[in-house]
């Protein structure tokens, strides 16, 4: 569904991506993990058109995205939820959702979208007239998800959705990702919390300094000694490192 080949990109004189290639199949949940500064966010920014690729190509459903502006790429159903949520702080919750539904020109389409978003995240309905900047971090993440849903995604790119969230909200985020998947939305997930990400994903890519250094089924990456040592915390016995997959399956506190 999404195919990235030999992507080279950067900011100014700095090259952040040195030939990134990855594939995401329809219906898959694929994760991109790696240390801070490895180029994960830059990869997403290049795919969504915020950053112009210097070399390499990106295809979505067989169509090349080269030279397309971000709004046109979003209109294809490739929707990017950027790092830091980036909700519109001075708009109300509902206005944020309406901006997400920019492509919904008819009033009925907009209403259906709002209803679906409120059904999925009832908290947003309670706060629909509140300024988005006054929401808690977790609520802002839900709003970012709801806003992305309004854009009718076929493939969602989620950048660090759990960053800075309380453990309880991390559980909520994981639940939302599973719900997206159940609806048939393909997901490319960037996470620093590799445990969580690999617990949710079918397959994973590991990035280091602008390159893909490992890839495979999520389960086998979880067992890989190198990956464990670098990203899952060597030994991985200590409690905090285990917030991810295992706790998520259990009951929330």
């Amino acid at each position, binding site marked *: 569904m999404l195919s990235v080949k030999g992507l080279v990109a950067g900011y100014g004189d700095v090259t952040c991506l040195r030939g990134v290639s990855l594939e995401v199949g329809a219906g898959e949940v694929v994760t991109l993990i790696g240390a801070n500064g490895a180029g994960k966010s830059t990869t997403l920014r290049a795919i*969504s*058109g*915020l950053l112009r690729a210097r070399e390499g190509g990106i295809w979505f459903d067989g169509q090349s995205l080269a030279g397309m*502006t*971000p*709004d046109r790429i*979003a*209109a294809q159903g490739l*929707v*990017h*939820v*950027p790092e830091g949520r*980036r*909700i*519109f*702080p*001075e*708009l109300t919750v509902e*206005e944020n959702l*309406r*901006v*997400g539904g*920019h*492509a919904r*020109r008819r009033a009925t389409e907009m209403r259906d979208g709002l209803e679906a978003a409120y059904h999925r995240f009832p908290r947003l309905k309670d706060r629909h007239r509140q300024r988005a900047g006054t929401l808690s971090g977790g609520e802002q993440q839900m709003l970012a998800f709801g*806003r*992305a849903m*309004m*854009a009718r995604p076929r493939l969602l790119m989620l950048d660090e959705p759990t960053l800075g969230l309380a453990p309880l909200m991390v559980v909520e985020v994981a639940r939302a990702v599973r719900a997206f998947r159940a609806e048939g939305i393909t997901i490319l997930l960037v996470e620093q919390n590799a445990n969580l990400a690999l617990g949710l994903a079918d397959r994973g890519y590991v990035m280091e300094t602008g390159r893909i250094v490992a890839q495979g089924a999520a389960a086998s990456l979880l067992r890989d000694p190198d990956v464990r040592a670098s990203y899952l915390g060597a030994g991985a016995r200590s409690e905090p490192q285990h917030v991810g997959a295992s706790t998520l399956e259990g009951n929330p506190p």
Partner: protein
Amino acid sequence: MNMTALLEVTVGGVAVGCVYSLLALGYSMIIRASGIIHFAQGEVMMLGSMCGLSALWVAPSLHPALVLLVGMLAGGALAGAMELLVYRTLRRRGVPLVSIITATVGFSIFLMNAARLGWGSEPLRYPDMFRGAVEVSGIRISPQLLWVAASGFVIMVALQIFLSKTRPGLAMQAVAQDPDAAQLMGVNLSRSMAATFAVAGAMAGAAGVMLGSLFFSFFEMGFITGLKAFVAATLGGLGSIGGAMLGGILFGLIETFGAVFISSAYKDAIGMMLLIAILLVLPQGLAGLWRRLR
């Protein structure tokens, strides 16, 4: 000062304040969306005024609302074209913001001279669009002033509804707050930016017709008025929509009362001293004060 005079001065201050508000709104919308201080905003207003006046020459019995519309269309088309043909190109070529702002000063001077060529250098009187006077409990108020204040309020309310209820209005706000995120939601950046300039220009065009109908149209009218409206926008808090509306009306009142109680000869100086005082005491303007108090 008796009640009659007080009411007259107040209505006059609010009417002139509405003109500043409409111009200040344009400054604020443009600076929020693009970072540009649009110094040609006053000249967009002046050309709106000239076009409204010309429409009245052609059709002397034209309804005032239509004259206003002519001014808005002219101002909107002009500012939209400036963005599409010049500022956008400069941005795409990576020209620094300071240089783009300098270009807006260039536009201001160019438009002033173009208007002098087209409409001459003499002040041009707007024909009286209203006759008689309105009486409020025995006090007579000029219908011109009431018309200007009422149109100002109607346009500002309409702008608020446009920005918060319509698809292009919300897109404009989103672009102003976070252009990247807005694009990721499918908003076309350059279209939305051009729309922002066009709406800001339409506000200025309306202000021009209003100001012209109170005094006269003049090729230099935009210069000092534009600067004062910039002060009003700063008073309200640059970039704040509500702040620009409030700042404009407040500035109009301060200036009008200053002219009555201190001296009308120095009313421009009073306004400019106010700018420096605001920057020293309230750099974020009324909007910043409101945020701090909340």
